[in-house]
């Protein structure tokens, strides 16, 4: 081994505080999950940015193809009735 580290890439997710979801923060390289967590801790939470970390091997993520965006996401555009603002009500109905 030439000292080249064929360490997998891990995606790091940080929960900023209790009550909110984990949010993607970036990536680290590490030989295993344990060290990925350690590295993520050192890299992304030096200033109390988080109370919980997730690491996931990048290769284990299945992502949608940007070229499929029209078939996946555009149909939602013509269903405005899914939004409450689509329904006009008399002013007398104050809060609904």
């Amino acid at each position, binding site marked *: *081994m030439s*000292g*080249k*580290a*064929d*360490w997998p*890439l891990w995606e790091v997710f940080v929960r900023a505080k209790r009550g909110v979801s984990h949010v993607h923060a*970036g*990536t*680290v*390289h*590490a*030989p*295993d999950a344990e*060290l990925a967590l350690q590295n993520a801790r*050192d*890299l992304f939470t*030096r*200033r109390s940015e988080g109370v919980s970390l997730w690491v996931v091997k990048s290769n284990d993520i299945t*992502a949608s*193809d*940007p*070229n499929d965006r029209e078939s996946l996401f555009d149909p939602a555009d013509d269903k405005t009735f899914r939004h409450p603002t689509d329904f006009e009500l008399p002013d007398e109905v104050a809060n609904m």
Partner: protein
Amino acid sequence: MAADTDALQKRFDQLIDADDRIEPRDWMPDEYRKTLVRQIAQHAHSEVIGMQPEGNWLTRAPSLRRKAILTAKVQDEAGHGLYLYGAAETLGTPREELLDRLHNGRQKYSSIFNYPTLTWADMGAIGWLVDGAAIMNQVPLCRCSYGPYARAMVRICKEESFHQRQGFQIMLTLANGTPGQQAMAQDALDRWWWPSIMMFGPPDSESVHGDQNTRWGIKRFGNDELRQKFIDATVPQADLLGLTIPDPDLRLDEETGNYLHGPIDWGHFWDVVKGNGPCNRERLGTRVDAHEGGTWVRQAATAYAEKQAKRATEAAA
């Protein structure tokens, strides 16, 4: 196929024109990808090499508090390098290859780190001027068209302002100190001023990549514009310190409110870029040694991970 590329190019142009972001899995022109890999990698290399001038004073900081602060700052710079290598990797170039390009000299890092740090006052001047100039350059990159780069820059900029403030405070302490300490602060300013304002790069009239990068939303301001902003912000700070900026031609232009600077020695700048600065060889040598010296650690971590994985499969069988 050509029609396909046309459609993809059109979609890319639309996103750029709308000042929207390009994300890793989007189609992008090869030149855009290449430009970004080069810029982000060089930026990452600069953060990593940038640890050395300050690392030089870690063991000699004047107090435990100063030592802890400087350690935290240097650690941040390592983190900045990692954020940026991560962003570059999303463009399809593996980290090992990026490091190779640094180690074999195929890619550069910022020339500012090829100057020696001779006294403790240099820690002040670097934080104040070098990190200050870096912030000026980096804030507009938070709106760069490439999403991962922009997001890395947001993190970096959040951490940078502590760097500049701790540097300025070192200068302030020295400027309010004994005549010897004041002279030390002035000497540091004398040595770091010109290299700092060179950090913005050559004048726009000579800049090679300028136009295309502006079109692509990678570059938002010209080199001269950013340099002017930096000088205008810094001159009053030097006044506050009671220090003199080593430029006899520096003067306030009443009409524009800008401080006009004297001629910059671009011959010297290019000489340092080409490898002839005071510390080029030392910086790269130290980096390569550190990488090679760390080989056994990486090997041990890999071997441990393999052993644990093997045990886990055996236990499951």
